[in-house]
């Protein structure tokens, strides 16, 4: 099969690739003039925001663009063989055997009606003509290779019987079954929790070294790219704008978009008051509305009329670089070390009286085990003895992985569920057992929520203005329609949307704009407490900065208490005043942001912090990878909830962790942890993140 191929040549060579999608109306160019080279054993990162064409490039390498997509120009060479001109038969020989792909959603990419073993064994059976028994044996070995416990049980399981992390390991195992030369990873960890993500990233890196596989790693997360890749290619609106080795691009970027991207992500050291993030102005151009000349031109600080918008801009090599190139005409003229001009220092808002107080809040669900209502009832302890206070004008972050009970907590506070026991005091009024239908309008309008997914939370058949006015009507705001319309327009001003947007339908808005409408709706009744449930996790990085800043601005003006629920620790560090870390329904650590992000940590906080990839070459991060998955809340481990995964467990004498739930301890003023570790061991803890000496 493999004709003579010189291993010193690139394994994948894409040259001037252009891909278009054809609709009845027009041709939509998705990728233009894209070139990149992947050498054997090298891992190449593709970074960019959604819609920039990075996944399209990956699918083009697989030649799987669907019915409408077509490669209109350029070439893709794999081991010197032209992929663009291959017929189906040849392609089948390469797919899965020499190029394999790992996908974003592991659950969706495994066949639900086939056993894991059969899905894995299929690969060598097709490509190497291996016998069934031998193929299953190989599958068993690879499953052990991806560090899954009990391979025999897993081979005979169906996909739905595994957790998300395990499923992704299976997808990886499937890709490795025939030892491919090139592995394409399309956002392989986006759907997973951070601690699981850390494990997967480690695995991918190790396997890459072990088998000498080249990788094309697609991600929107710059930190992840730095962890995994040797080189990267930054894409914007269908074009590669900068390419080079990771350290060089991160430290000496030579394209304004790359620079703007780095300025809009919360790196350690950013602070909402003294060093706020700088969002990229304007919006991503739609594929058929791209500007003349430089695509980034209209949003660029260095834009020069008549020059940047004159003609298409080619990639130009940067001398002295390691195959470093940029698609910018002015890269040699710009002073790349100048500090950003528009950095507005903001006043820290004072923290006022206690607005919300929770004491010993518990929320249990009972579920029955039988499929038809029978069986023994089990209790899921979603929240266990939750106590805290939130002050006026304060941002309190609630951090934890999926299943830790943070969303249940939000539901209880909103009144969508009632607590099992404990009290929720909102302005000295106990709302614990009052469901939302029975709360009075004042209470409802003062506790509001900003939802995670702006795409699903707006009514698709009602225009934006009408939706906000509807909220005002529900909150009994104003006496006449005119008054409410005026207020609605004011609210649009507050969330920095043009007033003309009142007549638009949600589908005409981008994700960031929709989230702004969601925020306007939440603040319509003058909310005092706003629960923001992962408000920016569905948005692109450049938009995230703008939306978080907006939330901060509104908070400063209205002295709102913001409960910020998130799994993203970098954004939490950036904007919160106090942090609450949750694990399996328990609050394991609480304190001010400084206290939580610096040692001594709760062992879980430590692991969580080390799992977050940081896109800064100067940061040295200690790697702590948690073994296994989060235990099920139906069947929590005895004693400390974290004991099954804790790396400090051996430091506690007498197996106390196995037996007893640790008590709440005060380490400092306002800093509490739930842990059995003694004070001197806690004092020995080292910081997870260190800045390298410059």
């Amino acid at each position, binding site marked *: 099969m493999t004709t003579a191929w010189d291993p010193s040549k690139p394994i994948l060579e894409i040259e001037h690739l252009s891909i278009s999608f054809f609709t009845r109306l027009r041709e939509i160019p998705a990728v233009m003039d894209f070139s990149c080279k992947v050498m054997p054993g090298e891992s190449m990162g593709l970074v960019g925001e959604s819609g920039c064409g990075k996944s399209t490039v990956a699918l083009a390498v697989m030649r799987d663009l669907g019915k409408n997509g077509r490669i209109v120009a350029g070439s893709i060479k794999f081991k010197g063989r032209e992929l663009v001109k291959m017929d189906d038969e040849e392609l089948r020989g390469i797919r899965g055997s020499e190029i394999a792909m790992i996908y974003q959603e592991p659950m969706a990419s495994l066949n639900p*009606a086939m056993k894991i073993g059969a899905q894995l064994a299929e690969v060598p059976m097709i490509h190497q003509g291996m016998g069934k028994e031998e193929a299953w044996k190989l599958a068993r070995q690879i499953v052990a290779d991806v560090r899954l416990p009990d391979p025999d049980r897993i081979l005979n399981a169906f996909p739905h019987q595994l957790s998300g992390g395990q499923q992704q390991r299976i997808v990886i195992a499937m890709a490795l079954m025939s030892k491919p030369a090139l592995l394409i990873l399309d956002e392989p960890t986006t759907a997973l929790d951070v601690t699981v993500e850390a494990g997967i990233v480690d695995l991918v890196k190790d396997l890459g070294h072990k088998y000498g596989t080249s990788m094309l790693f697609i991600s929107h997360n710059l930190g992840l790219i730095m962890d995994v890749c040797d080189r990267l290619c930054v894409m914007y609106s269908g074009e590669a704008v900068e390419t080079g080795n990771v350290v060089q691009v991160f430290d000496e970027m030579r394209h304004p978009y790359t620079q703007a991207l780095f300025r809009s992500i919360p790196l350690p050291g950013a602070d909402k008051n003294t060093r706020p993030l700088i969002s990229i102005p304007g919006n991503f151009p739609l594929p058929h509305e791209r500007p003349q000349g430089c695509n980034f031109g209209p949003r660029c600080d260095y834009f020069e009329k008549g020059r940047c918008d004159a003609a298409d801009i080619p990639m130009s090599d940067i001398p002295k670089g390691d195959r470093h190139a940029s698609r910018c005409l002015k890269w040699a003229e710009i002073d790349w070390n100048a500090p950003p001009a528009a950095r507005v220092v903001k006043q820290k808002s004072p923290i006022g009286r206690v607005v919300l107080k929770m004491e010993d809040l518990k929320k249990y669900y009972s579920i029955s085990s*039988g499929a038809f209502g029978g069986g023994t009832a089990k209790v899921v302890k979603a929240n266990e003895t939750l106590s805290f206070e939130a002050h006026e004008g304060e941002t309190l972050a609630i951090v934890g992985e999926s299943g830790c009970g943070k969303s249940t907590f939000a539901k209880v506070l909103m009144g969508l569920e009632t607590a099992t026991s404990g009290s929720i005091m909102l302005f000295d009024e106990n709302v614990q057992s009052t469901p939302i239908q029975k709360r009075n309008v004042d209470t409802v309008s003062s506790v509001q929520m900003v939802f995670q997914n702006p795409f699903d939370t707006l009514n698709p058949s009602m225009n934006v203005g009408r939706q906000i006015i509807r909220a005002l009507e529900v909150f009994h705001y104003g006496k006449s329609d005119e008054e409410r319309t005026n207020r609605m327009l004011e609210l649009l001003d507050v969330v920095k949307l043009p007033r003309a947007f009142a007549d638009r339908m949600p589908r005409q808005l981008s994700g960031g704009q929709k989230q702004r409408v969601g925020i306007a709706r939440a603040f319509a009744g003058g909310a005092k407490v706003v629960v923001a449930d992962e408000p920016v996790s569905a948005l692109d990085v450049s938009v995230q900065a703008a939306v978080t800043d907006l939330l901060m601005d509104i908070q400063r003006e209205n002295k709102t208490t913001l409960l910020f629920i998130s799994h993203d620790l970098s954004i939490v560090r950036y904007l919160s005043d106090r942090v609450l870390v949750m694990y399996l329904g328990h609050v394991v650590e609480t304190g001010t942001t400084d206290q939580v992000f610096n040692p001594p940590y709760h062992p879980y906080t430590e692991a969580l912090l080390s799992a977050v990839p940081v896109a800064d070459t100067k940061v040295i991060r200690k790697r702590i990878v948690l073994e296994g998955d989060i235990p099920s809340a139906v069947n929590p481990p005895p004693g400390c909830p974290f004991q099954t995964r804790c790396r400090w467990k051996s430091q506690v004498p007498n197996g106390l962790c196995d037996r007893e739930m640790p008590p709440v301890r005060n380490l400092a003023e306002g800093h509490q942890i739930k842990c059995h570790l003694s004070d001197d061991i806690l004092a020995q803890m080292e910081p997870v993140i260190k800045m390298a000496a410059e």
Partner: protein
Amino acid sequence: MLRFVLRRLGVMVLTALVLTFVVFYLTNLPPNLEKLARSEGSVRMTDAAVASWIIDNGHGGSVFYRYAEWLGVAPGWVLTDDKGVTRGLCIRQNDDPALAPTFCGIFQGNWGFSTVFKKPVLYSLGKSMAATGWLMLAVMVVMVPVALLIGVLAGMREGSRTDRVLSTFSIASSATPEYVSGVILVALFASPATGLSPLLSGWGWIGGKTLFLGTATSAMDNITFWNFALPVATIALYGVGYIARMTRASMTEVMTQQYIRTARLKGVAFRDVVLRHALRNAMIAPFTVIMLQFPYLLNGVVITETLFNYKGFGWMLVTAAGNNDIEMLLGASVVAVIFVLATQLISDIGYVFLNPRIRLS
């Protein structure tokens, strides 16, 4: 699994009781009983005589008690008239009343006597069920494979020419009810005056006057292709369109799933993608529809058997309903209810086997 089946059987019995009670109540409404009295007794009876006939023949009293009698859980009625003759539900003519059993309902195997066919209900029912059973079997054997094949072929490449042709066919056939397609088929293939038969017979290709037989009465004793094809085709045609549409919808949806892309990018050939990866997943939804077709067949059978004069369950039901044959109707309803519930049980169990995500504890 066993517990699930037992529980479902319990639910089935309850449903059957409720449904048969509804039928019992409706067939035993006073006007029906009056009609029965006049047809069994004398047409010229006075109203008073009708009322006493109803009471004398055990149709008086509470409907619940009579239902219980019919089931066989309450003692059957016993009356001694002026002449000293004792009659009762459980006393056959010329038998000694003292030896007759106390209970005799359907539980005891006494399904009553058909007033139209002049035979015990159980006997007529058995005969007609057997006839219909053959018809249904033939329909299923023809309909299910054809429909699945059409659905899968149409759905595996959405929007292709094959898809459009097959979809047009299935829409047309599911939009044609049996009483239309049956007449068309008869006109085309089984009429000596129109359609194909006069042509073929003119060319001397067929011996008889028609290609197929327009009536299926002879199939009661001896099923042949020529007397059975048209009734089978009439019922199957409608179902084929319907099941094919469902299969196609399910197949197109499955083909857009990510795991199909995974399979394709594993290097699996298109044929194997369809057969190994898509088919089982695409069968989950149509399976329920196919099982739902069984009760529906009972419907189709009524029209088709009447049209082709095939003396099966449907024909018998029409005759019994037209002649106020209460006990026959009740018997038929029991059979129909059990049949429908049993197919639903099979459908649920089969669903579990097809779909590993559902597991019964």
